[in-house]
């Protein structure tokens, strides 16, 4: 019975969250953090940051951090339930809206909504970055890694995997 309860909680929380994920999965990360670390106490903030890192190292959409949270909370079933809840409902919405999209694609209200959501996405992404920086950047060297990564990613199209590999190596050497 307890297991059913936790699976239902995962399903309900992530399904609800997906409808407020404006600007994609990374924009919803502060809400995941609030849920998993602060409200439910499923994990420590360090564990959450670890999961974000593991999700970044996994090929595929960034939403995959949800799978890790689900696994941590309720094993493989939890992983599948959390992933389906975060990804399924908005896809059903996308499927139906896809058929009527042409009708309002050029509508001013539609363009206004989309333009209005951009600054919100930016603010939410900044909140995501802030949470990671607060958790992981505890030294000048760590901040430097964040800053240099940001600069390289901004000015070049280098595959991020190189940056993760290098930063992971610097971390493993104990230089952070």
């Amino acid at each position, binding site marked *: 019975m307890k297991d059913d309860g936790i699976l239902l909680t995962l399903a309900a929380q992530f399904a609800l969250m997906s409808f407020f994920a404006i600007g994609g999965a990374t924009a919803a990360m502060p809400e995941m953090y609030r849920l998993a670390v602060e409200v439910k106490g499923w994990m420590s903030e360090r*564990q959450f940051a670890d999961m974000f890192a593991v999700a970044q190292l996994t090929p*595929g959409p960034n939403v995959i951090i949800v799978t890790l949270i689900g696994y941590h909370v309720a094993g493989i079933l939890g992983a599948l339930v959390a992933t389906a809840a975060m990804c399924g409902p908005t896809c059903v919405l996308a499927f139906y809206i896809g058929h009527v999209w042409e009708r309002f694609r050029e509508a001013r209200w539609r363009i206004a909504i989309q333009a209005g959501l951009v600054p919100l996405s930016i603010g939410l992404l900044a909140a995501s970055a802030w949470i990671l920086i607060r958790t992981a950047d505890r030294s000048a060297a760590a901040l430097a890694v964040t800053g240099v990564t940001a600069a390289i*990613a901004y000015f070049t199209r280098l595959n991020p995997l190189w940056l993760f590999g290098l930063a992971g190596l610097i971390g493993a050497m104990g230089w952070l």
Partner: protein
Amino acid sequence: MPPIAADSSDASTQFETRPPLLPSGPFELFLTFAKMSLSGFGGVLPWARRMIVEDRRWMSAEEFNEAFALAQFLPGPNIVNFSAVFGSRIAGPLGAVVAFLGLLAPPTAVVIVLAILYARYGEIDLLQRALEGVTCAAAGLIVAVIAKMSAPIFRKPFGPAPLVALAAFIAVGVLRWPLPYVLGILAPLSAALSYWRLRA
């Protein structure tokens, strides 16, 4: 396996011109989405564009942008929404499900293996330190995305957008207020402001 050529009565009529080519069947659709998903570190979008537009030629660049705009307009993970939009245009509900599973099943399997390893070895000091390094880099990547996205909202004449972004950051990042409440207030406000600006 039957080919999933789009029925002319299906969603493909939404396009003035049909996609130049179509997947030969559900298996190819699944494999293509699986391949783009497993190629994408730190974001699948560039790979989706490359494979669908340049490699397979299932959509023109314009059709791709238009379909992705819809995926972005809706809440939820953008590229996952895109898989449903693309799949349904190619082959209705079945196509949507196949593309969705192609995109998500392989990385889900990979990450579950990593989760099992993390549960077992996550407390090892060396791994801990390495993950901390990766987290620092991941934060940097997000900062770069923010910088790229922010360029348009700081273009003159200044609108209210920077203030809206700042309000969202403080409410969600610093004060850690629940996302639904924050967006419940800020989203209509921001949309109304941008509607008003479009009229002007």
